[in-house]
């Protein structure tokens, strides 16, 4: 008998995509297909979402799971929370796993706040006794006591999210799995939620936290895993995982150059995205040149959006062409130049994520190009680095005495 919170041995999850049966979602079609080709064995395309992953998580750890898009973070969490079954390997859980993959799962708009607390609590694995015992705490934490008998469809979205998170935050399971729910709610509520998760770990419970935002992992977790294409390439300190994440940038860029591996429907894909100045000083404008092919078969016009991301994957700025009224006609090829003005970036490495969108995403090219901001500080006085450490960006500021 082990005494770990979670032990995983050679865990593999393969998604099989039936090539021939692709699109067969009617039983009549399935029967017809079987009658037509009674002897043919189905052929599958295999997609290995998780490959041969082994680890032990001791009690009381808050483990961050980081990785780039499609690395298998969410799949791993789904396996550990038993939402989906493994293809190979073994998961050994030391206690109940409470999951919070999306806030408000199981909330029904017509039910009142009180009814939803009980329903949601039960779904998340609480017994009636547990819910009853924590009921007042849940209501207090959410701050919706006045509206307990109101159907949640009349709640503001903030109230809804707060109530949903409160139920989940009061789960008494030994292991708690969370997928980026902290992105919701106002700042105060986020702070309270962070505190709640810290205290959960302090009580000796184990917290699993999946995130794209590396800075929240730093703030919250005592150890971290870095997943790369379904493999566990680092498990240990948070800094080590972040290091692995940064180091993977080069290989990730090569991969993203292959348009078929990028997200989006692919109806229009960038030919190229380039930052004109690979090295710049903090106050320089950043100029990005994008080339887009003509795609006459695509109806309607489209817009583009460029994100400036720092080396931890946090988005520093979003430059959406909709905001400046620019839409593009797919009939013609376009060469578009984006100039980002008035953004004082801190010294370091940045990447551009460029997307083509209509109603959905047509192309999303992560780390399409990178550039360095040189270690110069645009201030009149040279001082210690301490003066610039906090903050995501630099800014033009002055102090005046009155």
């Amino acid at each position, binding site marked *: 008998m082990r005494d770990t919170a979670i032990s995983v041995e050679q865990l593999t999850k393969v998604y099989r995509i039936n090539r021939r049966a692709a699109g067969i979602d*009617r039983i009549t079609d399935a029967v017809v297909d079987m009658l037509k080709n009674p002897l043919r064995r189905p052929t599958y395309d295999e997609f290995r979402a998780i490959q041969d992953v082994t680890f032990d998580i001791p009690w009381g750890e808050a483990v961050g799971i980081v990785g780039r898009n499609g690395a298998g973070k969410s799949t791993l969490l789904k396996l550990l929370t038993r939402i989906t079954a493994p293809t190979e390997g073994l998961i050994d859980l030391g206690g109940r796993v409470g999951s919070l993959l999306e806030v408000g799962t199981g909330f029904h708009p017509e039910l009142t706040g009180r009814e939803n607390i009980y329903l949601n609590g039960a779904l998340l694995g609480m017994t009636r006794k547990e819910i009853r015992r924590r009921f007042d705490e849940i209501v207090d934490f959410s701050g919706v006591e006045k509206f307990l008998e109101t159907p949640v469809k009349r709640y503001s979205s903030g109230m809804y999210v707060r109530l949903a998170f409160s139920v989940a935050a009061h789960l008494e399971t030994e292991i708690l799995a969370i997928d980026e729910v902290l992105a919701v709610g106002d700042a105060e509520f986020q702070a309270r939620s962070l505190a709640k998760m810290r205290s959960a770990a302090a009580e000796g419970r184990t917290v699993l936290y999946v995130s794209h935002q590396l800075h929240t992992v730093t703030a919250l977790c005592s150890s971290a895993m870095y997943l790369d294409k379904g493999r566990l390439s680092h498990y240990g300190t948070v800094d080590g995982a972040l290091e692995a994440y940064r180091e993977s940038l080069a290989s990730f860029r090569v991969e993203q150059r292959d348009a078929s591996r990028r997200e989006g429907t692919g109806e229009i894909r960038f030919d190229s995205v380039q930052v004109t100045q690979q090295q710049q000083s903090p106050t320089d404008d950043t100029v990005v040149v994008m080339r887009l092919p003509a795609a006459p078969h695509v109806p309607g016009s489209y817009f583009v959006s460029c994100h400036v991301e720092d080396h931890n994957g946090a988005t520093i700025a979003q430059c959406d062409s909709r905001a400046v009224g620019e839409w593009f006609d797919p009939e013609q090829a376009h060469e578009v130049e984006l100039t980002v003005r008035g953004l004082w970036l801190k010294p370091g490495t940045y990447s551009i994520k460029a997307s083509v969108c209509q109603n959905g995403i047509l192309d999303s090219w992560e780390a399409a190009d990178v550039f360095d901001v040189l270690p110069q500080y645009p201030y009149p006085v040279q001082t210690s680095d301490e003066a610039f450490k906090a903050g995501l960006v630099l800014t033009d500021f002055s102090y005046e005495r009155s």
Partner: protein
Amino acid sequence: MGRMIVTPPKGLSLPRWSEVWEAREVLWRFGLRDVVLRYRQTVVGVAWVIIQPLMSAGVFTIIFGNVADLPSGGMPYFLFTFAGMLGWNLFGGVVERSAPSLVANQSLVAKVFFPRMLVPMSSAFSVLIDFVVALGLMVVLLVVFGVNPGWAILTLPIWVMLAVLLGLGIGLAASTLLVRYRDVGYVLPWLLQLLFFATPVAYSLEAVPEQLEWLFTINPLSWLMESYRWALLGLDAPPLWQMLGVAGAAIVVMSAGLLVYQRFEREFADVI
């Protein structure tokens, strides 16, 4: 609580009953949700439960009792069909409501883990409540028509349970198939309707021509209907083998439903 070992799914396996038992609160909350929604949202909610079997029984009385002039074992035709509808609605209602339940709750299935069979199972709650309401009406009708069913009424809970089990077995299998093949949702109501007319609900076995009788003798649902009328109206009891047969069929159908469900359960989140 001991450690929980998760391994890849193997061919056929039984559900982990201890886990289902531990999650019983989910069953209760889902059932409660369905009942609350049904009766809170619609003003006609309660009325509908009474009106539906009353109207159906009325129409069948006119068609089969008056137009076709079929026999009804000496019972008022209306009472005769109403008793049948009561039993049929229990079975059909469970099938009808449990079958789409997994797809209707797909966001849950894809996002949280709990024994998913509780979703189709919980739909039996609201059907049972409907049954109780209709049963109250049945009692009134018995008094009005002055019919005394006798001690056989004591066996009613058995038939209620068996009807629910039969319905759940089919409902479980159908809800599982529906996850993969959405058109099952179109085929099922049609099959249910065929089954309704192939089963002596709105007419009695007496009216069946002799050369076709075997068709009804092999239909477990007609055994069930006969048992219902025996219990509710005090009509002739079906042969003992048929009564035991209903129980046997319920167990077989329920087990088959569970097997189908269990075979696909762990793929739900990947398919939905």
